[in-house]
């Protein structure tokens, strides 16, 4: 939990960076299209010459789509200890969560179409808690996710609720 050991955390699989880039790109494209429609077709503000708002939006969204995925990718990290998993996450509200393996009720490994394309998977640990009842760790290599799941599964103890 100490600050110096946080740096020893494992970064996510590089494929996750591409997952984040593609989803940011898609979001930016959708917003830009909306802006173009507003700017060139609908034109609610007659005084602004066409094209200016779109160019500004394109610059901002482009910068965002290039800049943010990298930062979001870096905000994640995890460390697998002997008896618990430490997860660092969050760009805006940063958090560090520890899940003792004895507390895990069941484990999911999920993989969306985009994740499959880049060879990553999401690990979800379900506990009996309420606020953190599903602790999510995205962006693991598919094989890593399976390996971590098997390690945790061997340590789950149902008798300690």
């Amino acid at each position: 939990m100490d600050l110096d050991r946080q740096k020893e955390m494992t970064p996510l699989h590089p494929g996750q960076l591409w997952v984040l880039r593609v989803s940011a790109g898609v979001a930016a494209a959708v917003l830009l299209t909306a802006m173009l429609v507003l700017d060139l077709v609908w034109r609610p503000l007659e005084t602004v010459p066409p094209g200016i708002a779109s160019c500004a939006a394109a610059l901002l969204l482009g910068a965002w789509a290039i800049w943010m995925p990298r930062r979001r990718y870096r905000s994640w990290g995890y460390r697998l200890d002997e008896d618990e998993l430490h997860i660092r996450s969050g760009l805006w509200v940063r958090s560090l969560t520890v899940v003792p393996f004895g507390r895990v009720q069941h484990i999911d490994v999920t993989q969306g179409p985009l994740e499959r394309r880049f060879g990553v998977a999401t690990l979800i640990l379900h506990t009996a808690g309420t606020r953190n009842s599903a602790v999510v760790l995205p962006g693991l290599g598919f094989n890593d996710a399976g390996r971590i799941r098997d390690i945790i599964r061997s340590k789950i103890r149902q008798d300690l609720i």
Partner: protein
Amino acid sequence: MEQTLADRRLHPATLFIRFLKKAPQFVLGLPAVIGFSSKAGIGYILLIAAAGAAVSFGAALLSWLRFRYGVGECDIVIESGVFHRQRRIIPFDRVQDIDIEQGLLARLFETAKVRIETGGAAKNEGDLDAVSLGEAHRIRDIIRHAAHGAPLSEAEQPAVKEPLLFEMPLRRLLLAGLFNFSLIYLAAIGGAFQYLQPLFERNVIDVKAWIAPARESAAAVKLAATLALVALVLFLGVLTGIVRTVTRDYRFRLARTRAGFRRQRGLLTLSEAVIPLRRVQLAILGTGWLRKRFGWFSLDFQTLGADVQKSGYQPAAPFGRMDEIMPILAEAGMDELPAPESYVRVSVLSIPRRCLSILVPLALAGGMVSLFRPFALLLIVPLLMIGLVIALQWRRHRYALTSGSLHIAEGIFLQRLWIIPFEKAQTISVTRSPLQRQFGLASLTVDTAGASLMSYPVIRDLEAGVADALAKRLLEEYRTAVKTRSGGPQGS
């Protein structure tokens, strides 16, 4: 192992209870709507009412006929559904709580609703609504004794040797009701009066014109009316508090059973709940600003698998002295309270941090408005009060560690002490919002099973280093607690 047969039906009175509960919709509601919206005659409306009654009775009959259950050696089977059949099997060792509840109608027919909690997400998954009272006790005793491996013969004399831990005589109950005087109810009543005010004004004017035309006496009448109104509101506030408390906690009894506690209470709706000790996750010692001066406290347990609607809290002693509550805590192994001087406050920077996040936006908004409406400057009074509350909350927000648990104190008017045994932590997390990062602060949350989403134990605004160290310490305590527990003679 043999399959358990679902060979029993619910009590026939269930039919009538369900019908009576649904009757207002079909027999009164629908015809009323039709009566209002069309010019149909009274005969036609009566016909609709009769048809509604028939349909609703038929539906109740069908679902009663199609509902069966059976109690086997190690599981209970419930078959339900008119068209879509469902067969649900609940193994006894998955049962967390069994509640027996008797509403007013159920008491008339001597039936009871058995509620089997499994800790699953689905609501009402194990409800038997309703069976006869004797059957309810039979089911409860079978499940309870099967789960604890005790011989069934013991079930026949349960109430005799359960030591009583806490009960509320009527005097205590009335006193508790006095303290339960709720501001929310007061506000509701005030709102109602606001709504009715035109009526009152007219009355006052009438009275004024009627009694004396002189101006002074009119003012006196108005003052008297206002005072009377305030007195009435206060009286009603106290009365609702007492009525609410008495109906809920009438004949409150908490007894120690083999595996935990048994609680009975209620005036109109009798309820009986079992709180198994191994399902208890944490304890909340509550009091109020005024209650504390008179030495009154309350104790709730947060249990796994309790109804989420009730936010997982089981009252163990709604209104009692510390020396009555400590023995209950001792039964749960949580009676080691930290010494008052061992409590540690959170960082004092919490005050500016919270002021910035709450007060500054409000103050800015108020300032903007006051540019156009100068009287909005009066808003400064509530703002100052919020600031004061923030400062007082900082003073009350403290934590302490004992050998077995983490203690978190919070609240000014409603004060709470969370007692969280180390081994009950589900996850431990340290979070830092952007503003907290500017002040070098962090919050520490211990997630527990059955916690409510609204109020949960959290230590807000620790210094970041302290939060990290505390999280580390809690993790170590968790490890040792789990290790000693699994290495010890008892498995759970």
